[in-house]
């Protein structure tokens, strides 16, 4: 189910996500001090390359990491193999990526800039 390439990818994406998760949580807790509205969030994120890059990387890492994890689980628990397993892994990866990229696009694209 996992060869060395997938194993490495899953570890590397986990490494990537450690600072991203921490950054996400710290900024969230910091930003909600004294209340927060959608407009305030969008005013900071729209047109921001930094936040686009931050969450873009987050989405990419999470999509890869989650797809590989679910691949191992579905192979062991559901007994999936071969083409079915490959299709499921790619399906999960592309679905997560699409949903994530859509969300990142929605909060970072356009805006006052």
């Amino acid at each position, binding site marked *: *189910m*996992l*060869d*060395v*390439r*997938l*194993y*490495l990818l899953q*570890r590397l994406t986990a490494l990537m996500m450690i600072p991203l998760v921490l950054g996400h949580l710290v900024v969230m807790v910091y930003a909600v001090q004294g209340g927060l509205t959608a407009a305030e969030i969008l005013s900071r994120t729209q047109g921001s390359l930094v936040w686009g890059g931050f969450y873009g990387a987050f989405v990419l890492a999470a999509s890869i990491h989650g797809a590989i994890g679910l691949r*191992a689980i579905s*192979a*062991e*628990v559901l007994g999936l193999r071969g083409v079915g397993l490959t299709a499921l892994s790619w399906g999960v990866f592309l679905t997560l990526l699409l949903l994530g990229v859509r969300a990142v696009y929605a909060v970072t694209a356009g805006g006052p800039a």
Partner: protein
Amino acid sequence: MLEQSILATSVWRGDAEGGEFQRFEVPRRDSQTVLDVVTHIQQELDPSLAYRFACRVGMCGSCAMMVNGVPRWTCRTHVSKVSGNVSGGGGELQIAPLRNLPVIRDLVVDMAPFFDKWTAAEGVFRPSETRAAPMAKVQPGSPARAAANAGIECINCAVCYAACDVVAGNTDYLGPAALNRAWTLVNDARDGGQAERIDAVSSEGGCHNCHSMGSCAQFCPNALNPTAAIAGLKRETVKAKLGWRR
């Protein structure tokens, strides 16, 4: 006292098609091993019982069975250690064929998949010199030799293979014993088959499937630690993949 008490024993009877547990009452004796119990049943109660053993002293690795749901070498497992303390009786034992391997009959499993995986993991010494070469000098205290020594006392009993939940969920997984063997050879300075071995344990059923649950290390009768060996293989395969390996 002990001689008079009775051990309530359930033994799995059947073949590849299926089967069920059969009850036997076995006299409880001092220093009795689980293999003694099975032998008593076969010699005194039901000669048709099939089981496998050879050395009776924990060297050959052929008598492993599931004892009360746990894989054990039965020749070195004392009944007193596993039968529980049922008041007024000699305790209870449930004996079944090893998990994760196809049953041939009763307590005998087909070990072929287990040994096929040793081969698939390149668990074979590949000489790098001919017999004419001088004796290789290996420092006993070198880190590689210490790592090899730590795993070398495997008796191929398949207790770890039966204990492994990854094997249970993934029949392609090479399993702890084969990977432990591969790790001892990765650390053998005399071996010339390292590239093939690294490839073999990096494949789909290779070391990266291990979830480090540690059942192999917990149940190994020789107190080896295949989980650590597999972690070592993960490190070396990653190094090889990234081109960091010598």
